[in-house]
């Protein structure tokens, strides 16, 4: 399958990337939804920041504008973004319980995947928790050094 180069749109000189691929059967609108969710959750899209207009994003990603519209609708109903009348779509304030629920959901999915892999590799839960602790301490240490 051909892979299209990542679309980047520049806001305040900060490239934010969405990468669409038709390769694995996941619906395109879902890919957009998931990636924007992740960008918001990881802080690369800040609350109050404007998302590109549907038309512009569609042209950058080379997908149908309706697909982008559907993605925006899903994000809106999930509370990640909000539509301000005729002024565009903006990332909503992350303090709302809806937004936090979304973030927890993303993390839960990651943890599920982690646990499934651990089971396959025959590593016990107690070991997994130990490793998490170790890695967390290591990360704290490097952050303190900076």
């Amino acid at each position, binding site marked *: *399958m*051909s892979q*299209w180069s990542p679309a980047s749109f520049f806001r305040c000189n900060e490239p934010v990337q969405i990468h*669409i691929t*038709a*390769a*694995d*059967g*996941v*619906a*395109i609108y879902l890919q957009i939804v998931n990636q924007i969710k992740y960008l918001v959750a990881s802080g690369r899209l800040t609350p109050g920041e404007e998302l590109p207009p549907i*038309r512009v994003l*569609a*042209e950058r990603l*080379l*997908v*149908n*504008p*309706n697909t982008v519209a559907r993605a925006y609708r899903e994000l809106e109903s999930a509370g990640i973004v909000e539509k301000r009348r005729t002024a565009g779509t903006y990332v909503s304030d992350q303090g709302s319980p809806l937004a936090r629920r979304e973030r927890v959901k993303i993390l839960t999915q990651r943890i599920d995947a982690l646990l499934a892999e651990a089971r396959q590799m025959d590593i016990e839960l107690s070991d997994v928790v130990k490793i998490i602790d170790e890695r967390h301490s290591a990360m704290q240490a490097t952050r303190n050094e900076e």
Partner: protein
Amino acid sequence: MQDPFPSSTPPIVELRRVTRQFGNKTALDEVSLSVPRGGVFGLIGGNGAGKTTLIKHILGLLKAQSGSVRVFGLDPVENPVGTLGRIGYLSEDRDLPNWMRVGELMRYTQAFFPNWDVAYAEDLREAFDLDGNAKVKHLSRGQRARAGLLAALAHRPELLVLDEPSSGLDPVVRRDILGAIIRTIADEGRTVLFSSHLLDEVERVADRVAIIHQGRIMLTATMDELKETHRRVTLRFGQALDRPPSLVGTLSCAGQGAEWTFICSGEGEQLRRAAEAMGATVVGDAGLTLDEIFVSRVTR
């Protein structure tokens, strides 16, 4: 599934039971197709399935031997000005007058289309990096496709018809073409009809899709419908089986022993219940790419 375009306006292209034979060969067999106004309509099929023949009927290059063809409500054979004057067409062979220069081509085409936007045409020419003085016969393949695309787009046609627009072109030109398609329908009420066998492109931009195979329309659906009703389900049975059991709506299946993978069309819930009824557990459930859907549909 909700149609994103529940429009009350008449379809922009309507074919009713069109049949076409070339000697002994039936190129189109009772083909009925309805392209609604607005949106991108993808016509997909293998080589020789009948895509170009169908498109030629829409342009009035072929007369329907039986059935009827209506574009904008008019017969394209009887009324070439009323139909072709509102259509932008890029042919599969990129037929352009070889002796003309690009600038002459633009001015010549302008005379035929009252809606020609000179400024927009200039923008396109610059964006496509076409030299106005270059002769068409000296253009590379990609440049030729861009020139044809310019001539088709600059008058902002209500209907953009593209026959295999990406065939034989490098990815850069393909991006231009897809971009043009998207910009076209972003404008209210304009429609794009394109045929392609590069299904990953169709998947990205099409709203509706019709699969044509051996001159017959196998199915017409919105892209959402299509993707939601075709799934790859992997079932694990209680014991090893020699032959896979038949599951309703199966298009194809593969596997061995106790694990079998089905490609089926149908509602997700239905499949689950059917599987459970047979005492199998669902271990995998994934969507299919348009490519896989097409192949499984066509190679039954």
